[in-house]
């Protein structure tokens, strides 16, 4: 039915491309009008337009300018652990919980 991962993936690639470009140019681009991120109306299921993602990058750029480093993913300690199967197996605790309920819920 309506899944748009492919589109999102492509959009993302394009967005990252633009982001790199924007980062390279940021020194001279004095754009102070940070467009607000406005997700589209709920009842629309159109694929994510590239423009939306660019807006995300743009506002990120602004934040960078004001000293809030939000645009790049840096939480590798969290990520590395949560993608390491062995480590998670060693650390995760299986909760002891039995279902006492009976009948349709």
């Amino acid at each position, binding site marked *: 039915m*309506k*899944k748009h*991962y492919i589109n999102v993936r492509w959009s993302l690639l394009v967005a990252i491309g633009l982001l790199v470009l924007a980062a390279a140019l940021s020194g001279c681009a004095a754009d102070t009008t940070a467009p607000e991120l406005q997700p589209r109306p709920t009842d629309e299921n159109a694929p994510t337009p590239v423009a939306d993602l660019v807006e995300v990058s743009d506002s990120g750029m602004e934040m960078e300018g004001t000293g809030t480093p939000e645009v790049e993913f840096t939480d590798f300690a969290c990520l590395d652990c949560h993608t390491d199967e062995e480590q998670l197996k060693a650390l995760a605790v299986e909760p002891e919980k039995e279902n006492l*309920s009976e*009948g349709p819920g």
Partner: protein
Amino acid sequence: MPPVEAWQKVFIDREAYFEQDVHSYINCTTCHAGQNVDDMDAAHEGMIADPAADPEAGCGDCHPDIAPYAADSLHFTLQGYDTAIYQRSSPENHPTLEHMESYHCSACHATCGDCHVSQPNAVGGGFLEGHVFVQTPPMSRTCTACHGSRVKNEYYGLNEGYPGDVHLRQGRMACEDCHDGAQMHGIDPNIPLDEDRHLNANHRYNGDREPKCESCHEDEIGVGSGILEHEIHGTELMSCQVCHSVSYTNCKNCHVDKTEDDVPFYTVEDHWLGFFIGRNPLQNNERPYRYVTVRHVPVDINSFDKYGDNLLDQFLSRPTWEYATPHNIQRNTPQTESCDSCHGNDEFFLTPDKLAQYGLDSELGGANLDVVVEHAPPLPENADELVERIKARIEAEGGTLEGGGMEAEGAQGGEELSGDEAFWGGGEEENAPAENADESFWGGGEEENTDQSAESADDAFWGGGDEGGADNTENADDAFWGGN
């Protein structure tokens, strides 16, 4: 649901998340708080396991058109439960009942994550797709994981002897095809974007009637449809389900309790399949019907006794048989086999003896008197004449009339009858006991059997059919809904 091990529940699919998800550039700690450090305990200090637990704080910055509404939706507030419970009790009992709800209702409470990121806690949690935010919630792992005992069984055809809903079998429709994002987010799509779009319903049946059967079947209903039953009854006398639904699950006497360690649990004394036409307990502009299908509420006067005495002291101020919209729509049903399978046939109506048969003695009287049907309405004397008139009109318009049992697919062996006799089927048949009618309907018709086999074809993608929650539902969903 597939059993998910503890480690799996927190295992992120690095590739999928970073390749597919627009959120992956956001730092974990921006949403989850905590610290980006190697030591687990230190990393988890102050962490928020479900950032969507406060939707506005967690998602509202970027989804301002959704989060404020979703935060007030029935899924998030569970206000429908409050409404149903508080209506049946005096205000002084509400605090105790609220305390009870904090134990027994929180597992059903749905955050953004329960539809878009994880399987609901009620089925043990676990990511839908390795922390990817899934745009369309996969129905068998989200919607029917919570809406399991009634909707799921009806819709998938898991109630023995009853095929799945025609919208699944024939239409291949998922929950979201009717219940769109706006409804799930508590948004009224008819209100413009820049205004307050709250749905403003404190119970699922007291707001707008959405979704509506009419919005998709406009040309096939009411006068002008060419279907006798539709022509005669119009669209306001009874709900569509009165003719198009089959038996559904009813429960009684659900009791809640908790162990010494505060682990909540419940027991249901009894449940059964049944089909009941009652008077509409909620008649209003949106739901003008005189007759609707009604379902027995799971709650009884003593359901919450473990938390206090006589908490539901206003129990009979609301009926114990409530307005219901079963999810097992069929084109042909036992009650529409002929006019007389319904008219004059008490079997399908909530008659006074059924109140006593299915409920507790304490349920006799009160608001139930508004729902109960003394006797099935007889076929009006002028019915014959009306039918003739409709037929004449339709023939004059060059159309053909359907319904009236004439084309009860397969069940009638395809005999083309004509004239009055066709409708009235020559007396004897009409008066056949309803059980036989059932049999010929559900057993006989070839068409029906075709439908049933369509159902087993579905098995491939529903993951084994008998239990929507079998472990291959995941793949099943993907295959069905177009994968990713």
